[in-house]
């Protein structure tokens, strides 16, 4: 296994910090949104805010695919899981996400057979090993994880495994960025573009961001230096009066994306007309469903799901946090009623959620933390 230390070097980080500070125009404030939850996590896990100039503020966007699943969809998933003979499988970070009727962990405690898997192929293995049961995989994620879901369906068909289906909740990144840019209270000066998603879709789809909305966007990876370099490139563009899509993550992201992965998605899935995002509401063409051709593997078609809409709790301000209008700690219930133990909104659940990341790693005054560690 190759290590990532070359992207964690403290000396280089300090040098970048100096260069970033030099790029900031006195008196101006900069707000950049990192779209991807992975970046939010990296910023807090590595304490990267220490390196950012005081004038730069990061806004944590909607890019945690677990955080955006609406409560109604979770209730639908619990409904499927409670059908006789069903084994429900999903990723670890879905287990604690609250729906209208509790979480997967609660459904499991009520007797549903719910298993954590690391990939959809694991779910298929379970189906193979339990021919008398029906195994459903709760698929979540952006274009990052959609190809492996699609491949698993193709594999199931090729191997003639009939007791397997997918409850598809894949979402697409571009419409959500558009929705944020269209929202009247949006205030970002530039975007840090997602890394893994872009490895699939490439950089081209982001070109509308500078062209139509006049905001620069830099695609980058998840190591500390990746994130810092991306912010540096955004500041450079602003200082030089440029506004472009740049690829800081060329070691992983090809400009045109991964044609094979895209074609697999295209073969098995199609765009939904609308999909509800937690906090952001209904966004057109923002999610994928299983196409007609693979209906036999579509849990939504196999099971009559209630499809009830559950309104987000009144106190929840995840929408504002996801759009970057509020900082996590500005939410009325942050840290009081809403904590990682008792999440009200989904941003508090996944470790990539803006609120959870802030609660776990960032909730203390940077200055105090800095002083304590320097002493």
């Amino acid at each position: 296994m190759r290590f990532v230390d070359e992207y964690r070097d403290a000396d280089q980080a300090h040098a970048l910090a100096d260069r970033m500070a030099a790029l900031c125009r006195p008196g101006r404030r900069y707000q950049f949104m990192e779209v991807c939850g992975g970046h939010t996590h990296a910023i807090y896990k590595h304490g990267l805010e220490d390196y950012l100039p005081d004038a730069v503020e990061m806004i944590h966007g909607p890019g945690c695919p677990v955080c955006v699943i609406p409560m109604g969809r979770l209730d639908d998933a619990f409904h499927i899981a409670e059908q006789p003979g069903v084994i429900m499988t999903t990723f670890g970070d879905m287990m604690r996400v609250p729906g209208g009727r509790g979480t997967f962990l609660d459904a499991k405690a009520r007797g549903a057979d719910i298993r954590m898997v690391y990939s959809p192929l694991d779910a298929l293995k379970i189906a193979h090993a339990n021919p008398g049961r029906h195994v459903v995989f709760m698929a979540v994620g952006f274009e990052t994880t959609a190809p492996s879901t699609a491949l698993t369906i193709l594999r199931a068909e090729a191997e003639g495994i009939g007791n397997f289906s997918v409850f598809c909740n894949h979402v697409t990144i571009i419409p959500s960025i558009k929705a944020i840019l269209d929202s009247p209270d949006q205030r970002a000066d530039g975007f840090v573009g997602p890394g893994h998603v872009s490895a699939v879709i490439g950089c081209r789809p982001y070109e509308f961001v500078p062209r139509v909305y006049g905001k620069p966007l830099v695609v980058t990876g998840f190591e500390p230096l990746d994130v810092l370099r991306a912010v540096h490139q955004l500041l450079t563009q602003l200082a030089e009066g440029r506004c472009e899509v740049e690829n800081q993550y060329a070691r992983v992201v090809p400009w045109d994306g991964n044609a094979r992965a895209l074609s697999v998605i295209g073969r098995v899935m199609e765009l939904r007309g609308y999909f509800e995002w937690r906090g952001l509401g209904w966004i057109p063409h923002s999610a994928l469903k299983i196409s007609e051709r693979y209906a036999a593997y579509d849990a939504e078609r196999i099971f009559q799901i209630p499809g009830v809409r559950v309104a987000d709790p009144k106190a929840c301000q995840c929408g504002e946090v996801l759009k970057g209008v509020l900082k996590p700690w500005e939410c009325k219930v942050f840290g009081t009623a809403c904590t990682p133990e008792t999440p009200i909104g989904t941003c508090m659940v996944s470790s990539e959620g803006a609120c959870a990341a802030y609660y776990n790693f960032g909730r203390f005054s940077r200055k105090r933390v800095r002083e304590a560690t320097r002493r």
Partner: protein
Amino acid sequence: MSPRHLDDPIREDAPLEDTGLENTSRPDLVPGAAQAEAAVREACELDQPEIPHGHMSGHSREEEVLERIERARKRRARVREDRITLAHGAGGKAARALIEAVFLEAFGNPLLEPLGDGAVTGPVAGGLAFTTDSFVVRPLFFPGGDIGDLAVNGTINDLAMCGAAPRYLSAGFILEEGFPVEDLRSVVASMAEAARAAGVWIVTGDTKVVENGKADGCYITTAGIGVIERPVRLSAAAVVPGDSVVVSGPIGEHGMTVMLARGGLDIETDLTSDTAPLHTLADRLLAACPGQVRCLRDATRGGVATVVNEIAAAAQVAIVLDESAVPVRPNVRGACELLGIDPLYVACEGRMVAVVAGDHADAALDALRSHPLGTDAAVIGRAGDDPAGLVLMRTHSGGTRVVDLLVGDPLPRIC
């Protein structure tokens, strides 16, 4: 049915043609009559050589049979089933056979052998440390160990962290009906081996069997008694600003090994569990730094991060860790990176965190490193005064962050 049939139906190793049971591989499911017949035949065959022919003539048929039964009852107990049945927990003959043939056989020591309701020791000099722990692990067998040595070492370590020399252990087993006896033997053998290696005795125990599906194979509950031979006062609350936080070796090996051994992850590694008894290591440290060790904790569930948080909270000090000083083996780090898990939160079963007075950190390191289990010991942080109760970390890349308690298990992230 004679009593013998209940617990001793058929020898596992008897060739099928001898038993007339060609059609079954589950001797415990054989219908009574065939079982009885086969058992009598077997008893005769087995006993034949011991019976001098001349004596036979003096006995009536009844005496002969009774004598045979008597001899059969006296023979060493054997467990002939290949799976645990409810009978093994019922306190009857099957249970007795299990205790004698599996547990006593492996653990045998003078305190256990009377098989009383409890073990009785002679007088003990010094204070006592007393601990209890339960072990549930899936899979039961993993690279580097199994639930058996985990249970023994885990209990020993709890005692060692009190500054005690571990002496006596108890072991309670909850077995699931259908659990392979072979697996039980392996678990028990590794418990015996771990106990022998650490110089402790397993002196009392208990077995219960629950119905199929009501447990996950085998659970073990232990208790342990240790003797405090050296005057120590170990307490997390005793930690003061200026103290150093030491870890005895590379972290996270046990937790990642078990997570990967559960399968479902196509990650090839050479990871093995770090399960080990820490009492001699702890003893060496305590001897080298008399009065200077504030507290010892084994970094099991929740890993080093959790232990350090508990210490910070108990002592109301700030603890600042240095991420690049924390020893993590490359294979653990690689697996953690892949799964999005922070090794600081991953369980260890053979590593301890020690807090020592700041000016004794070097002496503590020398002592630990002179022991085979402590060769990679390192100072990973120190205690300060502000912000009290918090753990902070200077990250690898030079940033800072808070290291908080986790809500539940570390769960792998998806992207």
